[in-house]
């Protein structure tokens, strides 16, 4: 296979990992919203935890995006 083509295919495959991060972030915000509707008065206090969980989950998706960007532009 042409190395350039393999590089682009690899970058595309690396981006699949972001789907997992998408699922994770969706679960976090969905559960937060469900809990916030049940008990709106406690929602504000959990905002920090929400953002923290979001950041931790998002980082894993960002890593796969980084691999894709490295393949496309860095290497």
């Amino acid at each position, binding site marked *: 296979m042409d190395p350039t083509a393999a590089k682009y295919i690899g970058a595309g495959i690396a981006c699949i990992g972001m789907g997992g991060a998408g699922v994770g972030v969706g679960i976090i915000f969905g559960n937060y919203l469900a809990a916030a509707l049940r008990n709106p008065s406690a929602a504000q206090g959990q905002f*920090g935890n929400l*953002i*923290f969980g*979001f*950041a*931790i989950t*998002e*980082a894993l998706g*960002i*890593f796969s*995006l*980084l691999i894709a*960007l490295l393949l496309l*532009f860095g290497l």
Partner: protein
Amino acid sequence: MKVDPIHQFEIQNFWPLFNLGSHQISFTNSALYMFIIVGVASALLIGATTRRAVVPGRLQSIAEICYEFVANTVRSSAGTEGMKFFPFVFTLFVFVLFANLIGLIPYSFTVTSQLIITVTLALLVFFIVVGYGFWKNGLHFLNLFVPKGVPKLILPAIVAIEVLSFLSRPVSHSVRLFANMLAGHITLQVFAGFIIMLGSAGILGLFGATLPFIMVVLLIALELLVAFLQAYVFAILTCIYLNDAIHPGH
């Protein structure tokens, strides 16, 4: 017309200053923008607090909201003992926030899209956490890696995982901010490129070009949110890591 989405992150040398070994140290556009960020942030916060009124004006309430916001974050995630690190966290928050916001201005340079900048900030946080943790708790700081109530059999594996996750913190801390800014600005550039490509394709293309144009406007709004959110995430993670140094042991 070819659009190069990576061009905006190029470092340009303005004044070569001196050579350090084989490395050239020069005043670059990155350094210029860091001076601008510090200047704007200092001017805003100093200007807001020179005339301190009991009933705050518009400028003073911006500074007060910023202060209260970061102070509440530090207090809730690192405890009242963490408030001695408040100046550090506030500086990091304001620097990253202004770097992200100034980077959103078209034709400007985003300092936080350079990995070296975010790694420097993340390593600064990491070494402060390690240094303060050992200075305050001595070897008790190592309790951080030994969770309580874990069966003896799997304890070595848990400790190995804890050490690994502790060591990977500066990586994820820096790469998160860097990759968010990089990806956001590349996306903006790519969609802006679609406008030019469609717009140069005749009268039908001009109608088609309105779609990516609307998209760019929406993306700018999203990036504004991301700029604030990432600064907040950077600050809150700093607080959580500092909390480990202040109160080790789960």
